[in-house]
């Protein structure tokens, strides 16, 4: 075994999808990598000061500016003539990426920095207690979109971050999932084979916020993909180049494992609304295997 790049002893919850994804991302990127991390669960559980789980240089930025700090790191490496030997990753949660960090990220893409941005999408602000974010799915129960007599949960659909990234004409955009770990590692390697800004959004189940059993983390991730609710897609230079085909399963199989969707069960109309989201994705990206 080569030397670990992400060590045990971190303080993520048992079964945390984000901790698993982060280890595989850095293993795929390799030891010559500098990581810049937004504030959020990943930064908190991996740098339990004065301890660190990282085996590579790691910078904790603020909540909103990993992309700006990583841009500076990349510019410095370029100035020193070292950029060809070092990978730069900026990473953070869905809140740090799609909401408060979007301005810094858009700037990084626009200026064309040779940085891979990884968004760990656990679909809410988990580290501060499960508040909704722009990537929280429709009708999900969170502490700021609570279910009650007048509410079915989060009012809005997920912000289309992959499309927003593609609109910046960057070299590589992909979605990945903790349900498909080898695919995640292949996409990280693919990203580093291309120059310029890259964006990978990893669906990362959170047993605490999604209220599923810790042992089900990978199964929940797989079902999100296999129902069509989280399509795995790849764009190179603006063109759709890869789609993981599925034999679509009913969305109920995904919903029923998670407490955040429990209020939708036994409500055919509510399940139909979620099924429509999946069906739209299946149509739009041609996800269905043609037999």
């Amino acid at each position, binding site marked *: *075994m080569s030397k*670990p790049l*992400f*060590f*045990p*002893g*971190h*303080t*993520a919850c*048992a*079964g*945390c*999808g984000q*901790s*698993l994804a982060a*280890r*595989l991302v850095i293993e795929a990127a390799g030891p010559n990598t500098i990581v810049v991390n937004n504030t959020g669960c990943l930064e908190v559980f*991996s*740098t*339990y*000061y*004065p*301890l*660190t*789980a*990282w*085996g*590579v240089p790691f910078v904790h930025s603020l909540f909103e500016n990993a992309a700006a700090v990583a841009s500076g790191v990349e510019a410095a490496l370029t100035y020193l003539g070292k950029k060809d030997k070092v990978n730069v990753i900026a990473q953070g949660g869905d809140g740090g990426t799609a909401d408060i960090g979007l301005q810094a990220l858009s700037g990084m893409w626009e200026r064309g920095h040779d940085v891979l941005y990884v968004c760990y999408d656990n679909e809410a602000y988990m580290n501060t207690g499960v508040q909704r974010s722009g990537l929280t799915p429709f009708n999900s129960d969170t502490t700021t979109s609570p279910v009650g007599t007048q509410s079915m949960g989060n009012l809005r659909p997920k912000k289309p971050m992959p499309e927003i990234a593609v609109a910046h004409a960057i070299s590589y955009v992909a979605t990945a999932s903790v349900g498909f*770990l*080898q695919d995640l590692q292949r996409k990280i390697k693919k990203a580093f084979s291309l120059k310029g800004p890259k964006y990978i959004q990893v669906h990362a189940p959170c047993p605490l916020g999604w209220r599923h*059993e*810790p*042992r*089900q*983390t*990978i*199964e929940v991730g797989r079902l999100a993909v296999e129902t069509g609710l989280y399509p795995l897609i790849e764009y190179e230079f603006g063109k759709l180049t890869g789609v993981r085909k599925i034999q679509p399963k009913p969305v109920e199989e995904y919903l029923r494992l998670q407490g955040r969707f429990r209020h939708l069960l036994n409500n055919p109309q509510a399940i139909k609304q979620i099924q429509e989201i999946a069906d739209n994705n299946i149509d739009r990206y041609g996800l269905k295997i043609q037999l």
Partner: protein
Amino acid sequence: MFGPLISKPGTSKNNKTGSWRIEARPKFLQKNCIACRLCILSCPEGCISGEEKNTFICDYDYCKGCGICVEVCPKKDIEMVKEDLDLTKV
């Protein structure tokens, strides 16, 4: 220079998260293992090691008992057993 800085890599190893397990731990049966390495790939703690068939084992100093390795093993060669406090000294 600004701080705080941490200069040594991987010092989280001083934090023995194995103490978090309260109910159950994985037991590596080492009988029908085909060395597919899926458990190594899937452990959020990165605390499983092994090379040859039937040699895979986790480090109970760090294992949080999540049960993911049990779920992914295609040969059902890992099972959850009741936590035995004596065994934590293995």
